[in-house]
């Protein structure tokens, strides 16, 4: 499916909760409101036209003044199209639901975002930390403005 | 000229005459001879193991387009000695939770069994420490002790990897003992004797009369089972490096580890020596005309060739899985060994 078709497909279903991001990129970029995030994921996976059966990439991002974001890069094995779904989360208390019941691959990605950004995923089946040491207590390192032991920010000129 | 056969007998005879003239009972002389033979065998083991370890490294290196040890001595011949000295100096670590006594005795048992098997191996014409009339039977009995030592080591280390290795080795050696013994029986039936010397003599100095030809199946079974007995790839599961780290000897260090190592190579030599004795005519030359070469050179030549083949296996093949290993022994080798036994029996009945 082309970029327009994918956008239309999502738009007809989610309408007001959806915000299409205009970029010069060949992929579809969408913002979805947090409340319908899980529903959209299920739709994206199960709809026969979209058929996004491949969660390619998943990560958080931090915009300290505004929001947290989670970014899903979706891909379809059969249809061979891509889409990037983004969700805005609260800047103080980022919280959303897990989508590891939709794509199993989200499990580790969410664990990673959980410990690096401090984003909470409700109903996550295995919310243990993944990458950092077991007794890590220096906060969430991927947040902007984070400092910790041995961290040297790039010198500003 | 280089034969020890008559020489040793002459020395013994003259010594016994001298002892008689002194009035000392001959039992003392026999004891003296035994101690002497024991010491010589210890020397043979030490030298052969030192050589085999070096040779293994060289064979593996050249198969893999490398050179192997090159520094100590010419082409690294003294490398094993240097390693041995290093191991001697190493701290002997005993895990705190280990079963100390068993932990200590396991390598000893392992080495002693390997050592005892050498007693009945005829290294050349008349070069045998003790020509027992149940020689081959004795060897089969003695080598079974290896299981106990490996099990002891695996259990006493109190390490899960070691335990898995010990259990695997017990299962493996017990299983492979059966086809091995059955394959040996084939040769014994043809020779009509259990004595190692008699088996060699029965084969005669013509290489097509050796038992490898009538016992080709038995020889194959024996060789495969012997490789398994000596814990060599593709049957080296007890110490499967990539699965169990080092298996039963994972906690051992220093000289205790060296003793396991020594025993492994001694066992490899033993099984090859038995194969030579039973199937390749022992010390006898392939043709009577070649008897100007001393008998022990023939023996060592054949044995080392077999050792080389075992090494060649190791550097070519992957390792079997534990259940496949057992299945292979019980479902494939054992029926084959029985078939071989049956055919040999028929042959002996009709042509023997």
């Amino acid at each position, binding site marked *: 499916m082309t970029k327009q078709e994918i956008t239309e497909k999502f738009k007809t279903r989610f309408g007001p909760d959806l915000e299409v991001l205009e970029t010069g990129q060949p992929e579809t970029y969408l913002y979805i409101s947090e409340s319908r995030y899980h529903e959209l994921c299920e739709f994206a996976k199960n709809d026969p036209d979209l058929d996004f059966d491949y969660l390619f990439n998943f990560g958080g991002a931090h915009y300290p003044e505004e929001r947290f974001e989670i970014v899903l890069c979706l891909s379809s094995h059969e249809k061979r199209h891509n889409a990037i779904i983004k969700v805005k989360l609260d800047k103080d208390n980022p919280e959303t639901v897990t989508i590891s019941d939709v794509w199993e691959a989200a499990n580790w990605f969410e664990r990673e975002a959980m410990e690096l950004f401090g984003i909470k995923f409700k109903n996550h089946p295995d919310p243990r930390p993944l990458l950092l040491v077991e007794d890590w207590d220096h906060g969430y390192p991927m947040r902007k403005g984070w400092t910790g032991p041995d961290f040297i920010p790039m010198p500003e000129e | 000229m280089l034969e020890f056969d008559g020489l040793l007998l002459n020395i013994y005879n003259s010594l016994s005459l001298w002892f008689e003239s002194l009035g000392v009972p001959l039992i003392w002389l026999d004891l003296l001879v035994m101690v002497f033979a024991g010491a010589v065998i210890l020397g043979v083991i030490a030298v052969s193991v030192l050589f085999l370890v070096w040779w293994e490294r060289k064979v593996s290196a050249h198969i893999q387009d490398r050179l192997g040890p090159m520094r100590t001595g010419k082409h690294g011949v003294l490398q094993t000695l240097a390693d041995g000295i290093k191991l001697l100096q190493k701290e002997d670590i005993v895990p705190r939770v280990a079963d100390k006594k068993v932990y200590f005795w396991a390598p000893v048992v392992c080495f002693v069994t390997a050592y005892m098997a050498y007693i009945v191996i005829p290294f050349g014409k008349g070069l045998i420490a003790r020509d027992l009339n149940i020689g081959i039977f004795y060897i089969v009995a003695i080598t079974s002790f290896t299981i106990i030592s490996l099990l002891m080591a695996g259990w006493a280390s109190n390490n899960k990897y070691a335990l898995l290795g010990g259990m695997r080795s017990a299962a493996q050696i017990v299983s492979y003992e059966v086809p091995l013994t059955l394959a040996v029986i084939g040769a014994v039936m043809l020779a009509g004797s259990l004595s190692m010397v008699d088996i060699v003599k029965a084969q005669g100095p013509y290489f097509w009369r050796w038992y490898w030809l009538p016992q080709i199946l038995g020889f194959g079974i024996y060789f495969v089972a012997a490789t398994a007995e000596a814990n060599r790839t593709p049957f080296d599961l007890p110490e499967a490096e*990539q699965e169990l780290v080092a298996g039963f000897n994972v906690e051992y260090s220093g000289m205790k580890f060296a003793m396991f190592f020594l025993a492994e190579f001694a066992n490899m030599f033993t099984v090859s020596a038995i194969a030579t004795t039973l199937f390749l005519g022992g010390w006898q030359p392939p043709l009577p005309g070649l008897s100007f070469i001393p008998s022990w050179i023939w023996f060592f030549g054949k044995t080392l060739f077999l050792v080389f083949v075992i090494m060649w296996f190791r550097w070519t093949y992957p390792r079997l899985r534990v259940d496949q290993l057992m299945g292979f022994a019980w479902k494939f080798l054992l029926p084959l060994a029985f078939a071989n036994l049956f055919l040999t029996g028929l042959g002996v009945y009709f042509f023997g």
Partner: protein
Amino acid sequence: MESATYGKKLREEEFLINMGPQHPSTHGVLRLVLKMEGEFIRELTPHVGYLHRSIEKIAENRTYNQFMPFTDRIDYCASMPSNLAFAVAVEKLAEMEVPERAEYLRVIMVELNRIASHLIWLGTMSLDLGAVTPFLYAFREREWILDLFEMTCGQRLTYHYIRVGGVSRDIPPEFEKSCRAFIKSFRKKVDDYEAILTENPIFLSRTKGIGILPLDLAKDLGASGPTIRGSNYEWDIRKVEPYSVYNKFDFKIPTGKNGDVWDRYMVRIEEFRQSCNIVEQALDGLPESDTIRAKMKAVFRPPAGEVFSRIEAPRGEMGYYIVSAGDKKPYRVKIRTASYNNLQCLGPISIGLKIADLVAIFGSLDVILPEVDR
């Protein structure tokens, strides 16, 4: 020690075994906590993170050009594709044209690196299965590739060769001859590996029907590269979304049938040959030109925006999601590596098998830990 009372039932229990982080066959520092029942695995929990260097955070504190050497370290067995993945992403973001000669050089290097990476896989997997010699043979051939890389870019492991906008240096004059000679001799070497392993009954019994990865599961877990191709699915970014100049080359995508260890092995063995084909075609078609790097401003500032791109690295798809704020350094870099997802397949497919099978399966997945931990 108290002796067991006669007639008392012996105690049976499942026991935990800690495989790694220091274990010969965990290819780095993976820790697997196995719940074993004798030789059988009942539960498997991977613990990763021992090599976590927070490369994503480092990326936020470096300029685009400065970050390039760090991409070498994401997958140090295949640094060229790691370089390329980042370069492709930034070029897509900045809408940059790369000189054609540079694209061809990139393809040559990446495919040679694919061979080198697969050689490490071949060596370590056969080592895991107990065959030591193929390991040494594989490293013997890899050495030649590394020599080729060294004469081109000066390093043997962390190449830092492919840059944003092109490549750092042109190949030296003797490269082509040596490369062709390598390809020629390497084809014979692949036959040697096959003679030792492919049809060997011991190897077959260890790999056929072991660790079958169903296609559904592979898709669900996001498996990619030879792992999903082994499960009989033709999925290769080089064909699906051709990047660089891959659409100019003629090559096949090998696939397996059942998704077992042997299939994944055969896929990679076949990829050796396909990569050889690509390198030869690229050498034939290498355009003569002096420019090997696009003109860039002194301080490179890509436009604000975000980009998503992926390439086919030896272990599977390596992708970048980059957010740029128009600054000279990226605002956010999310690296997607193939091993991260492929490692997740290990648990489901090795439950109920033996510890020896686990080792074989893990070898066949070709997971490299720095890529997982980043």
